[in-house]
């Protein structure tokens, strides 16, 4: 089983720098929720791991999978990793599914090409098992269906089945249920996390919803303006958020258990643009706890700052 390490990942498109410095580690068999508002660089980070960024993207930093550098790999090795070891599902299941082929065909292809299973009978048997694993009732009746004949929830289940067919060690899920109804959303997420457990794979779960990540993941990485700002256990993030941005994010969200309190806390101002040069902390302009140093100097994100990119983090405080 392999660990994933992302170190100082930066992605540029010309003058735009939508991913500025992302660092995290995902240990084998664990789940990490990558949380941030839209435009914070979550999807680009995920695509970088898959090696699916557009050609114009300039990537720097280190992406390491099981001790091997993903960037140092040849295109052929990369494709092998993408097909077998790391799989990805997207918000729109049709990103992975081909509308012109039946459900059965798409699963069959993976089993044939990626796992090299020769016998058609064997592939069909395996394929049906996988479809039933992802909660598709009477899979035999869906085997010959086309994706457009299925509901959004069912299509996403098929996309998950296709991703799992190659028995990946790491699954990257980018907002996989955002387009679905609430009750279906929870069903699919519970399914995803139970499959993760059952198969012992690692899960990188990208979402804009801190509560969802908090409920399901082992750890959470909070992203803002293309940077990783805070990394901690899900419980710690929800109960004892350290970074002022994480704190603000939690306070801005109404809570089911909370009373209908008079006002929600808001975050003044807006997210910096991807082509903005920022000298200090990326959140300083909107932070209610900022002081002089925050706009002059950039805080670091490392074990020394306890993975809290803030001058107020416990260890940084000593150096004030």
């Amino acid at each position, binding site marked *: 089983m392999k660990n994933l390490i992302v170190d100082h990942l930066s992605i540029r498109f010309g003058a735009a720098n939508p991913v500025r410095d992302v660092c995290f580690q995902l240990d084998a068999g664990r789940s990490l929720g990558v949380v941030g508002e*839209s435009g914070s660089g979550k999807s680009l980070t995920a695509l970088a791991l898959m090696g699916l960024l557009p050609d114009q993207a300039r990537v720097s930093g280190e992406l390491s999978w099981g001790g091997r550098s993903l960037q140092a790999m040849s295109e052929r090795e990369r494709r092998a990793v993408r097909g077998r070891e790391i799989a990805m599902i997207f918000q729109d299941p049709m990103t992975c599914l081909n509308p012109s082929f039946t459900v059965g065909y798409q699963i069959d292809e993976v089993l044939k090409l990626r796992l090299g299973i020769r016998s058609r009978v064997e592939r069909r048997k395996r394929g049906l098992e996988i479809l039933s694993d992802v909660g598709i009732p009477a899979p035999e009746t869906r085997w010959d269906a086309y994706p457009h004949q299925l509901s959004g929830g069912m299509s996403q289940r098929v996309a998950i089945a296709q991703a799992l067919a190659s028995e990946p060690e790491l699954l990257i899920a980018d907002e996989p249920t955002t387009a679905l109804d609430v*009750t279906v959303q929870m069903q699919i997420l519970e399914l995803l996390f139970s499959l993760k457990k059952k198969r012992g794979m690692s899960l990188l779960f990208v979402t804009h919803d801190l509560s969802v990540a*908090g409920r399901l993941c082992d750890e959470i990485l909070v992203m803002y303006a293309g940077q990783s700002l805070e990394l901690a256990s899900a419980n710690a993030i929800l109960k004892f958020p350290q970074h002022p941005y994480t704190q603000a994010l939690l306070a801005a969200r109404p809570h*089911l258990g*909370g009373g209908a309190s008079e006002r929600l806390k808001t975050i003044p101002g807006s997210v910096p643009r991807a082509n903005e040069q920022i000298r200090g902390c990326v959140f300083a302009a909107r932070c209610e706890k900022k002081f002089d140093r925050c706009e002059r100097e950039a805080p670091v994100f490392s074990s020394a700052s306890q993975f809290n990119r803030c001058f107020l983090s416990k260890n940084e405080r000593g150096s004030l």
Partner: protein
Amino acid sequence: MRALRGVDLEVGEGETLAIVGESGCGKSTLARLLVGLEKPDRGVIETSESIIPMVFQDSLGSLHPRRRVEQILVEPILIREGRWRFTPADRGRAEAIAAKVGITAELLGRFPHELSGGQRQRVNIGRALALDSKILVLDEPVSALDVSIQAQILNLLKELQATQGLSLIFISHDLSVVRFIAQRVAVLYLGRVVESGPAREVLTKAQHPYTETLLQSDPDATDGPPVRVVQGEPPSPLEVLPGCSFAGRCPLVQPICRTEYPAATVRGDRQFSCHVRAQADGTEN
């Protein structure tokens, strides 16, 4: 096809009624009926207002792409007065509306695509209030916005309600948002109100199993994983089944649920339609 059946709702002055449910449950049809975009086959809608304005989820799609913010804000006034030309007097009106909804003066000359999602939604709300309506229908007004922007819009709506005595009909699938904004809730499932009552009570002590399901599906519901996630997906509203529309997915289902639609059990200001819970309640009528 009947998108809505036997829906009875009431919203008081200065009150927010939230309509909760999943896609296809009839929420948007209901909104369109309320604002007169559709006519009911049967039933009546009574209000003291001649026009009920509406705000949609898609903040960009509902704004004219080649009009400036100041023009958009006074659109309803121009329409009412049957004229096209934007006059200097309209600028003053636009400024007054902008101030109400927190749009700064420098945004008045911009086009919709030059605004952020939150600013656009403020423009939509401002325009909806241009004629000083006392009631406003909002269809998923914050669902497409990021959390920090969502909070700004929700605060604005609460503020407007307090200062202008507005009544809101707030359509949403997000229970945490509903808990914050609404005094009353009606839960819609496949075109029927399955439960309604004060938000505080419905969202803490649900009676209808479908409401319970929604609550358990809310990520804020509990710390751990839900006790029981309902299986299956909402059936198509085209399938007309006898009995309770939730029977096919209900964990409490009994034979009677599949044959007879449950009458409403009324208890004070709460109401729900469920055979099983009505029996447990001992007040079936």
